[in-house]
Structure formats: structure tokens, C-alpha cells
């Protein structure tokens, strides 16, 4: 029951957040110089063509009126049609967002798989050689621009070693996972570095906690102490960070998806900025905001599940 009310409360908190984002997006895109017609028609358009299209899109209306129409549509669940791609925004989002979700999901998974064991090794060999090597390597991972990591991985693993496809997105699920591995790894490296750093610190902290001493004094096997007592408690603070980083991960997906030719929401977002595709930009922003908020919610729930003290 407390968990339930906790979830409801969090869902209610999302509403002002989404409204705020909606307004910011709306204002921001209309401040952008250039209009959809200019973006679409290119250099050869004549003024008459541009005016005609802007009229068709309702962009000759005052901004307030546009916002009103926009909100009315959103409330009825209609996100409008893409200006450039001539299809409905909702279908576009349904098509692209799962790709990005899979990409970020995979990279989150890879990051965890990398970070958890290495953080543990680093924490248990604290201030000694393995710790220094692991921290140094991740430090570098943190210091490299995503696009550069992507290009390097692409050149080495796809082009030279031919272990992975160069890019794109497969047809079957297995094929897609295979295609998304390298971009996911690219995103995962810096994410893993952040996680590792945090997890290492909290493992060290938990190792010094008195309940670990108590568990030792109980004569528990070291495996039990490690998993049940140390790791579980250390993960609690990392879960929050994990949730917070999802937003960053989605931001990183913008560049990764371009480098690896992954047809995901990140690239759609950039394309819609460059194409001044207002409906897509707005729709996608809402979708991403809701998505990230849900991620926060899920991490909160996971945290509450890991830590019974939270959901009072």
C-alpha cells in the first residue's frame, strides 16, 4: 500500500513536469530561425511556395493560437502529422522510440555488466594495482567524446575485425540486437564509467558498515556476505544514479544513432530540429519526457523494493 501511494504521488508529480517541458519546447522551437517551409523547400523555393505551405500548416496564426490548438490536440491524444515526412507523429514515434529504447536498454545492460564486477574488484583491491588500472581505464572512457568512441569502435570492430555489422538496424530481433551491440557499447562506456565510480565508492562504504561486520561475526560464508549484504546495499544509491543517467543516455543516443545509422528517436529528434518539423519535435519531446519520468519512477520503485526504508 505505501508503494502504491508512492507511485501515485510520483505520477502526479510528472504532470507539472510534462507541462513545463511542453511550454519550453513550444517556445523554443518557435524561436528557432527559419520555418518548416524553408527547411523543406530548400534554395529553389519561391516566396509564394513558402507562404502557401506555411498557410497550410497554420503557421500564419498567432503563436498563442497555435499553442492552444496544439494543447487541444495533445489532450485528445493527437500529436498531429509530421511536416517533412508526411505521416502521423504518433506512428513515427511508435516506430522510432522502440529502437532507441532497445539501444539505451542494451547499453544500460552492458554498462551494468561491465560496472558491477569491475567496481567490486576495484573496491576490494582498493588503492592497489587492479584498482588503479580499472579506474584509469574508466576515467578514459569518461573523457572520450561519444562520437569519437563510436568511430573508433566502428573502425576497429566492424571494419577491421568484421565482428559486428557497421551500422543500421536488422529485421529480426536477434539481428537487431546484433546490429545494436556496437552503438550500445559506445553509449555504455561512459555510462559504465559513471556507474563504476559511484558503485565503487558505495561498495567501499558498505564494506565498512557495521552490518557487514555483524554478518562476518555471524559466521556467514563470504559469498553470502558479498551478494546479500554488500552488493544489495551498495546498489541502492547506484539505482538513483542509474535512473538519472537515462536522460543523459538518451542525449548520447542522438549522436550514436547518427554515427551508426540507427533509425531511432534520437536521430529523429535532431532531424526534426534541423527540419523545423514542429509536430515531430513536440511529440517526441513529450514522449521522451514521459519516458524519462517513467524511468525515474521505475528506478524509484526498484529502489523502494531494494530498500524497505524508502516507501514508508
Amino acid at each position, binding site marked *: 500500500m505505501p508503494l502504491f*501511494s508512492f507511485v501515485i*504521488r510520483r505520477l502526479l508529480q510528472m504532470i507539472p513536469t510534462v507541462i513545463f517541458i511542453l511550454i519550453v519546447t513550444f517556445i523554443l522551437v518557435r524561436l528557432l530561425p527559419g520555418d518548416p517551409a524553408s527547411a523543406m523547400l530548400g534554395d529553389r523555393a519561391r516566396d509564394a511556395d513558402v507562404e502557401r505551405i506555411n498557410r497550410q500548416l497554420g503557421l500564419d496564426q498567432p503563436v498563442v493560437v497555435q499553442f492552444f490548438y496544439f494543447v487541444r490536440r495533445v489532450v485528445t491524444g493527437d500529436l498531429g502529422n509530421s511536416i517533412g515526412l508526411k505521416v502521423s507523429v504518433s506512428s513515427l514515434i511508435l516506430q522510432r522510440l522502440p529502437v532507441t529504447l532497445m539501444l539505451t536498454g542494451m547499453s544500460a545492460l552492458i554498462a551494468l555488466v561491465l560496472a558491477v564486477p569491475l567496481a567490486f574488484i576495484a573496491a576490494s583491491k582498493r588503492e592497489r594495482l587492479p584498482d588503479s588500472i580499472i579506474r584509469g581505464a574508466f576515467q578514459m572512457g569518461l573523457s572520450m567524446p561519444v562520437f569519437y568512441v563510436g568511430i573508433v569502435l566502428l573502425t576497429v570492430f566492424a571494419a577491421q575485425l568484421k565482428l559486428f555489422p557497421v551500422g543500421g538496424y536488422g529485421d529480426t530481433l536477434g539481428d537487431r540486437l546484433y546490429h545494436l551491440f556496437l552503438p550500445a557499447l559506445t553509449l555504455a562506456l561512459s555510462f559504465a564509467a559513471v556507474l563504476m565510480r559511484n558503485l565503487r565508492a558505495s561498495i567501499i562504504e558498505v564494506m565498512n558498515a557495521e552490518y557487514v561486520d555483524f554478518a562476518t561475526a555471524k559466521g556467514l560464508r563470504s559469498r553470502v556476505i558479498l551478494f546479500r549484504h554488500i552488493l544489495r546495499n551498495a546498489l541502492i544509491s547506484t539505482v538513483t544514479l542509474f535512473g538519472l543517467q537515462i536522460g543523459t543516455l538518451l542525449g548520447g543516443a542522438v549522436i550514436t544513432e547518427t554515427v551508426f545509422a540507427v533509425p531511432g528517436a534520437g536521430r529523429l529528434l535532431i532531424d526534426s530540429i534541423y527540419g523545423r518539423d514542429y509536430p515531430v519535435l513536440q511529440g517526441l519531446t513529450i514522449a521522451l519526457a514521459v519516458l524519462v519520468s517513467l524511468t525515474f519512477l521505475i528506478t524509484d520503485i526498484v529502489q523502494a523494493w531494494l530498500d524497505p526504508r524508502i516507501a*514508508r
Partner: protein
Amino acid sequence: MNATLPILSIDGVSKRFRGPYSLMRRLKGEPPLIVHALNNVTLEVHRGETLGIVGESGCGKSTLARCLVRLHEADDGAVRFEGKDISLFRGTERRAFNRRVQMIFQDPYGSLNPRMTVSQILGEALFVHRMRPKPEIPGRIAELLDLVRLPQDAAGRYPHEFSGGQRQRIGIARALAVEPDVIVADELVSALDVSVQAQVINLLLQLQSRLHLTVVFVAHDLRLVRHISHRVAVMYLGQVMEVNTSEGLFTAPRHPYSKALLEAAPELDPGQRNRKVALRGELPSPLNLPPGCPFAGRCPHVFDRCRTERPLLSPRGRGQFAACHLTDFGTPAPNANNPTGLLFP
């Protein structure tokens, strides 16, 4: 100034804190949970005396101490300083009050700003309250250090360079810097080692007689409170159960709770051992106060009236007050349930 007027008087002060307000409670239309930290507390502090306030955790003694220095504002009732309601003080009046009523805190680690040196800490107090012209401040700092028996080279050092006892001395020096009339000491020595406790207690006793301070000494350690106080107030769940002179309380407590508290404290005499548990049961939650006497749930002398009617603090003889329906509890007439004589030979 009227000599009979108490320097501080606490008139029916109540303090409530809002507990967690869950969504379920909101949806059901229930009010938020209320923590009754102080419940109609009435006490007087006389000029020059030491009033001990004692009780277990959650009894409201710290909240009361904080109300005295306006770290909390009372919800009901009033705290009066020299007869004036302190919640009405504004501007210079408030500054003057802040100067004249000071507090010393429990935690020797948390009560000093770790990024300020001792001379900065003391100097700031002197400067803000314009206690001394600027050039005289270093000299005054030296005097203060001397007063609390800290070495002179302490001035340039940071709190973390001192031991717990020394840090409490710095806290005392800071309070004394503004030359107050009243000092509220909240668990002043409970975080200190026994040998150091004694040093600080001795210092406090000396300073009090030398500077004619009025002291409100809040603690959970009965032995200490008895040692230092003229009068003692025993609190339980936000209420004052008994007010008594120090020796009166310890020889013949007038409230069953006071008595249980005394029995539970281990005596220093190995010959005084007994195996009887002084008081069974847990401390009740201050979230949902019972309608009757707050101690009713654990009291060995409980009877029906205790569960329905809250006893009020009422006089029991010379300077003695208790909040108990058993008005003759603890009177000198020997009582089968009162092994007082056994405790204090």
C-alpha cells in the same frame, strides 16, 4: 527588577510537528499525523538557579530547550523572558534576547562550523553583537579561552584539531562571548567520555557561580542532572511529570515514572544489584497520544481513571509538583511499593 519574577517562564507551551502525510491518508480525508512533542508544559526558571530537565528520548526535553531560545516557536502558550513573551520580540529586542539567552549544544562535532577557526567563531559572536570594539576583540578572545581553560594557541586552530571535551569548551566560550544571563545546555556532556564529562561539569559549575548564570540543564543522565541542578523537571512524552528539588526527587520521587527512572539507572555500588526489571514495556509513540495519562501503559500503579483522564501538574508540598492521580505517591509515610530506603541508604 523584580526579584521574585522568574527570569524564564514557560506557560502552557505546546509544540506539534507534522508527521508524514501519506497519500492514502489524504485520500481518506484524514488529517496528517501529528507528533505532539510538547504538551501543555508549564515551568519556571529562577534567576541564578540550575533547572535540570530529564527524560528519555522523545520526551520533548530538547524541543523544550529549543523553544526557550526560539529555535522553535511554541504553537500554544508562551515562553516569557523577564515577563515578556519572547515570540513578540522583533529587531533590536530580538537581538538583545538572543544575546542574553544562549544555548550550548549536544554534539561537539556538529555544533562548531568546521571551516572556521576558534578565533573566527568567537570573533564573529563578539563582532555581530558589538560586544567589544574591533581592536579589543583579540584580547577578549584570549580572555574567553582562558575562562574555559583552553590554551591560548587554540585561537588559530580549527575544530577538528580538538578533542570532544575541548570542543564543548569552545561551544561554551562562544555562548559566553555575548555575556548572557541564561544558558540552555542541551545534553552538554552526553557525547563525552566519563573523565572529560567531569571536567566540563566542573567548568560549568565554576562559571555559573563566577558569572551568576542561570542554567537550564537538559540531559538524560539522572546522576548528572542530580549533581548539577537545584531543581529537576522530569518529562515523559511531551509532558512534565514531576518538578522537584534535586534531593527531593532522588530521595522521594512523587511520580511513579520518576521512581522507575531512578530504579532503572544502574547504581555504582556492586552490592546494590537486583534482578528486577524496573519498568517493562516500550516508550509509546508520540504520534497517537493516549487520552489519559501518557504513562498509563507502563505504570505499575495504573487504575481506571489514569486511562481516561489526564492528570495535571499540581503542587505536592514545598516546591514539589507532580502530574499523577495518586496525589500521595512518594509521601514520607512508608509505602510497601516504595523501596526508597533501599536505594539511598
